[in-house]
């Protein structure tokens, strides 16, 4: 019983400090969001990956498959160019016609369909990226994960080889490498 009285006093004191605490929360807006950083990474990945002879179009198509976690974060890379090619974004609710994308980001909402997506893309030159647990082991080429509040990524070189994409060693050495057995 005595403790309840002490707790009440403590909560009242903390309530007085609450405006300060909230002010701090507002002021600290300078750290970028997770998906802004991931968008910047995707832009960088495209610089270090080589697609086989392309049709000569000057767009780099990034398809987001499933729920879109990026929201406005893609604005970070919208007008940036790589070798004269500009980004074009497509938001797909279902994984159809993914071979028309150079880069496909598979959202965690598609976890259940991941095996089917990987199978249907077998051999096609699409850089598949995700940020779900075990996505690289399941066949995506690049998978994001978080470590100590920083964005990291893992690469499945076998998957890249199957897609006919060449990944620069500069990118490989910064990644965690995921090795999985070859499909029979």
């Amino acid at each position, binding site marked *: 019983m005595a403790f309840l009285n002490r707790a009440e006093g403590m909560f009242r004191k903390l309530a007085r400090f609450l405006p300060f605490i909230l002010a701090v929360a507002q002021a600290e807006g300078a*750290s970028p969001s*997770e998906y802004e950083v991931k968008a910047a990474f995707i832009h960088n990945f495209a610089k270090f990956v080589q697609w086989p002879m392309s049709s000569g179009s000057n767009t780099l198509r990034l398809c987001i498959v499933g729920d879109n976690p990026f929201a406005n974060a893609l604005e970070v890379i919208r007008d940036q160019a790589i070798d004269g090619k500009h980004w074009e974004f497509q938001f797909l609710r279902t994984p159809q016609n993914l071979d028309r994308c150079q880069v496909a980001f598979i959202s965690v909402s598609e976890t259940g369909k991941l095996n089917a997506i990987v199978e249907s893309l077998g051999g096609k030159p699409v850089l598949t990226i995700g940020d779900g647990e075990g996505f690289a082991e399941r066949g995506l080429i690049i998978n994001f994960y978080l470590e100590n509040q920083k964005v990291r990524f893992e690469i499945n070189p076998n998957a890249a080889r199957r897609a006919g994409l060449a990944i620069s060693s500069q990118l490989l050495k910064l990644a965690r490498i995921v090795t999985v057995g070859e499909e029979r």
Partner: protein
Amino acid sequence: MKKTRALQALHVSILSLSFASLAEPVRGEEEAQTRGEAQPGQNDPKALTLLSLEQLMDVQVISVARKPQKLAESAAAIHVISQEDIRRSGMSSIPELLRLAPGINVAQFDGNKWAISSRGFNEVFSSNLLVLVDGRTVYSPIFSGVYWDVQDFPLEDIERIEVIRGPGGTLWGANAVNGVINIITKRAKDTQGGLLTAGVGNIEQDTELLRYGGKLGESAHYRVYAKHFDRSHYDRAGDNKPNDAWNQTRSGFRLDWEPSGPDSVSLQGDTYAGTSGENINIPLLSSPYSRTLNDDVKVSGGYLRARWQRTLSAGSDLSLQFYYDHTDRKPATLEESRDTYDLDFQHRFPWWGRHELIWGLGYRLTQDETIAHTFSTSFNPASKALNLYSVFVQDESRWMGDRVRFIIGSKVEHNDFTGFQFQPNARLLWKPAEAHTLWASASRAVRTPSRGETAVRLATSPFQNQGMTFLPVVFGNPGFRSETLLAYEFGYRSEPFKNLSVDAAAFYHDYDHLNTTEAGNPYLESTPAPAHFVIPLRIENKSSARVYGIELEANWRLNGNWRLSGSYTLLQMHFRIDPASTDTASLARSGDSPQQQWQFHSYFDLPHHLNLDAALYYVDRLSNQQTLAYTRIDLRLGWQPVKDLELSLAGRNLLDGSHREFGSNLVQVGSEVPRSLYAKLSWHF
């Protein structure tokens, strides 16, 4: 008086930290400015693309308090203690770390023993919580419980601790009645290089750890370590000086090898030796009928575990694990030595479109030898080998575009005491909207008899009546049944705002065939002399209980430097005894666990690579353990002056000079937990 001042000090520090954060730049910003580059931020997000890959990897992000995929989609009441939580807790032993999980009741009994349980039924040998380390069970069948004093491997080697409240019988087997604690250690490739830690404090008088990890060729990694600690005794209100000091030396290794793409092999082992002191009461057949003994229990043991895992294709894998475990304990009353051999196989594969099946087989042989040194405690038979066979199968299916998951399965075991045991369960998970999850489950779990319950003879202090000596003796019952549980749980998980996540679980547990001790007719016994009457207390299954409660947890990341978390647990227990039972003491068992517990944590990153972490705990009184409610405050200050060096100072139980967390039992005498200070140095080389 002391308490009010301490709380005031806490308020002042919260306030000054708020100002500090406004006044000084955040660590990341500071570094970027000294490098003379544009600071990426919401003001100029496009500047992010100007950073190189290496620079991008250094950027700290605010993300919603997002749990790993596995956690967010679990149809169970689960909490994961991460390595970061461990490092910043300021705690130096595994049992203490379990306080961080909501719904887990951790009561320190003395300097080296804990009573730890989930959802009630707490006691020093808490029988309803299964504890595993990398898939190896550390739950001893002798008294159905965990010897926490020998689970002391380096905290720095722990990847995470998964704490699952509620029955886990289907996947984990018998004795996972109220919960499962799964301690997972890091892979060898994540502990490369050297690590030296040294600590000193008023209780942890000295602690040292030396660890080294390296590579063997291209596809194998290893680590080896050695550690030692010496901890002083605690305090006790009462006459006897406590004898609960604790020291141990331990060393071990881990080797991970990937011989080819789909295969991975892991080998690990530990060996330890030390002393765990205690004070025990030994009955005597003549006046004064009981004496307290200072017992320096020598403990030693080790294990070896081998695991092979093969990925067959995307989403399909199998694993085979074998371990051998040896434990040796030498208390003054009864020595125990145990060898355990365990073989476990699991196979997981997708089938029938939207389903994933996981099934497995297991065999365990555990054999013990006990040697009694006093008339008061013995086992009959003194030695026994127990075989355990198990098979389980579980199917998981996804529906409605991954919004609904249904899991159904069962484990079937055969043990030498109670034959076949079935532990089925069904779970349903539904995501009505992004960032909202509802789950529900119904399960059956069993707690199989311990060696003690079937074979012990334990005498307690005799009393005189009309010139005759009466000696109460607890007798094990070879016909003891398994305790059973039917559990119904449901939960809700959500991220209502960016950076805030909440987790709620409610449960209703229906227990039956709970253990009781039934008094029988006294009889005369002449050895050992003098002749006395034995009052037999036979262990039976004549009780049942209804337990229900809720567990709430919230995590709030205020900004890049400050994270708060808290939890609240409510527990209501109602025990009943069968009409034929005489064990009215069983009705008071609801007083062995606290009705309410809550905790609050603040993790604050200060400039100049400082961390200030604070924790506040409240645990309700234990009416059946003569233990009052207590409030605990822990503080930790960590500093990383250079990249590979960390210094920290932690204060635990700062509010109280000493307090009791659990009562003494028939044999062991408990102590009071004191205030403690601990300074630690950690150097990676």
